[in-house]
């Protein structure tokens, strides 16, 4: 009986995963020339929603409201401003559903533009589809060396997020080497993200004379990280890196405090860069490092964006790594449309590939489909007195890098 029930359980899971997203896809709007219809397949529910809701969603919602309050995007071909209308389907965090919804947005709904799905794996699925139908795809959550490798064959795809060797870990390795760090222990999640970051660290760290004395992969569902943390502690490494997600970074932090593991550098991400990380650990975050792009002190425009996105909202919604890059990407996209004076994707694509526009980051441009690393206003961050400061690269730092990290606060 149990076997039968387990089997029916599996079948039902599959049926539910396939059927439910279709139910939520309703009420498509026909594109008209009094508005720009932007279509998206997003994880509004399901396990990916936690990433989508805290990463790109607050950015596009704020951006669209701001653009529409101003009347819309001026398109010369129509001689007027066209407001943006969003058409969003829920893919429930399922790649297969996302690919079907993407094709539906393009073929049935005939949206004017496509905005990205959520997650690196989703970019892999969505990019070839967008490119096939000559739809520009400016991605948000997700970036990887492996995506860069396929970009030459996908001229319509543009990647906004920074990643391992673009240009986070080279900057990190420089910072560490300068302070005299000699050894590192790496814990990484056993997926594309973890493998990539640990691989790049394995190249960049030894180049600067930092020896990797221990490396361990962990599965995504791991609960108790203390065996790995104890091993890291025993290795006595100067630097501890956790290349994993919030689901592992949060318990790893809590368990490091519990076992009194306080290396000279404690770096984790993505996870450390979010407001909810500080909300969860408060003063214990002092000196903890992660990946970032800006802080309020980066520039007046950065401060203005932080106000737009975070003022009057709980600290949990903050994301100092992704938000500025997604926002800059959308500003860049809008500027390219205005420059083109048409909604023709081919014309806009050529402009995006070759032009430089001013965004909150300053002058912004793309190199072979990637937002140029020179545009990044920061790569490595560190929590200092409740602010996630940019500490690297040094010419863009908003605060001095604290090394070694201070002791955990007394309970």
């Amino acid at each position: 009986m149990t076997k039968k029930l387990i089997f029916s359980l599996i079948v039902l899971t599959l049926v539910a995963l396939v059927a439910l997203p279709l139910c939520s896809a309703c009420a498509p709007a026909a594109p008209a020339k009094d508005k720009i219809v932007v279509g998206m397949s997003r994880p509004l529910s399901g396990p990916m929603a936690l990433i989508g809701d805290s990463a790109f969603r607050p950015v596009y919602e704020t951006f669209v409201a701001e653009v529409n309050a101003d009347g819309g995007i001026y398109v010369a071909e129509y001689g007027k401003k066209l407001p943006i209308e969003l058409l969003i389907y829920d893919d429930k965090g399922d790649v297969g559903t996302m690919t079907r919804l993407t094709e539906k947005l393009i073929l049935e709904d005939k949206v004017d533009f496509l905005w990205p799905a959520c997650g690196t794996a989703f970019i892999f699925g969505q990019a070839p589809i967008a490119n096939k139908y000559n739809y520009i795809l400016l991605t948000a959550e997700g970036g990887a060396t492996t995506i860069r490798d396929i970009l030459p064959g996908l001229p319509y795809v543009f990647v906004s997020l920074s990643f391992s060797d673009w240009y986070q870990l080279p900057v990190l390795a420089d910072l560490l080497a300068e302070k005299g760090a000699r050894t590192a222990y790496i814990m990484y999640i056993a997926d594309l993200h973890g493998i990539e970051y640990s691989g790049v660290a394995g190249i960049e760290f030894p180049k600067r004379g930092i020896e990797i004395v221990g490396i361990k992969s962990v599965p995504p569902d791991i609960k108790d990280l203390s065996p790995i943390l104890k091993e890291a502690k025993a290795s006595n490494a100067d630097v501890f890196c956790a290349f994993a997600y919030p689901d592992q970074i949060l318990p790893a932090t809590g368990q490091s405090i519990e076992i009194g593991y306080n290396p000279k550098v404690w770096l984790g991400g993505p996870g450390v860069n979010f407001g909810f990380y500080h909300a969860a650990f408060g003063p214990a975050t002092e000196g903890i490092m992660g990946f970032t792009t800006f802080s309020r002190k980066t520039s007046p425009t950065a401060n203005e964006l932080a106000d737009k996105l975070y003022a009057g909202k709980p600290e949990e919604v903050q994301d100092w790594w992704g938000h500025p890059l997604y926002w800059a990407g959308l500003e860049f996209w809008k500027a390219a449309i205005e420059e083109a004076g048409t909604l023709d994707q081919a014309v806009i694509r050529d402009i995006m590939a070759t032009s430089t526009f001013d965004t909150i980051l300053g002058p912004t441009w793309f190199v072979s489909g990637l937002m140029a690393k020179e545009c990044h206003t920061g790569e490595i961050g560190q929590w200092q007195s409740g602010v996630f400061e940019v500490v690297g690269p040094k010419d863009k730092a908003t605060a001095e890098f604290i090394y070694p990290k201070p002791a955990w606060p007394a309970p």
Partner: protein
Amino acid sequence: MMVTILDVVIAGLLLGGIYALIAMGLSLQYGVARVLNISHGEFIMVGAFLTWMLYTVFGINPLLCLVIVGPVVFIIGFILHKTLFTRLRISSTSSGAFESRSLLATFGLLFIIQNIALIAWGAEIRGYAYLNISVNLGGALFGANRLVTLGFAIAIGLAFYIFLARTRMGKAIRAAAQDPATAGLMGVNINQVLALCFGFGASMAGIAGLLLSMCYPINAAMGLEYTIIAIIVVVLGGLGSIPGSFIGGFILGLVGSIVTYFEPGLALVSYYVIFMILLLVRPTGILGK
């Protein structure tokens, strides 16, 4: 060496305590009330979020939240059984039909609860720091919060066992687990007993969620992972056997901890291997009849 062994064993017990509590809840719901509750994990999530909210918004000590979370989730479970599952049970022609229909219903419940949580609390990951101070057990260091978790899991497990073994209501529950029809004929108010079981099961899930939220980050989609672990433990311990689920939880925790020590990537694999071996060798579970 000694410290390493202590490390691994205690870590296993800490994890096992939570597994035991979760599985006891499901065991009550499936073993007695015959509802294979796929939404069991969602009650864990609700308990975790209630605690998080009470702690971060109202500043109520998470352990004190027990007196709020336990009853609230119990009432949700009790009402659900009184309305939805009792109706399904009465309108089903056989117990087999009821099992499959209630399974479908709990599937729906999973999505409903999860999406209500998404609307109410958002999709973001949540966490808070509570009692994360170090305790030294013979050289092995552990967080106080996790030890408290283990203490509560054992205390609740034992208290419930005593309730089942020593009270009149406990006897009625055991009778209903063995044969609901006969128990009904013997004067047990079967609808009431089954609803109570479902409520107690949900309440245990809620309390497990409370304890989990003290140590691990939580999010609205966290439930299913724990449901699967609970199903494995319930089968391991034997259907309907509360002590079996309790022991099964600790066994799974220990095995997970030992495997994690050697290769973290294989922990979940080891759970499924145990599950498969058990189904082949002793399908009734450790204490099943």
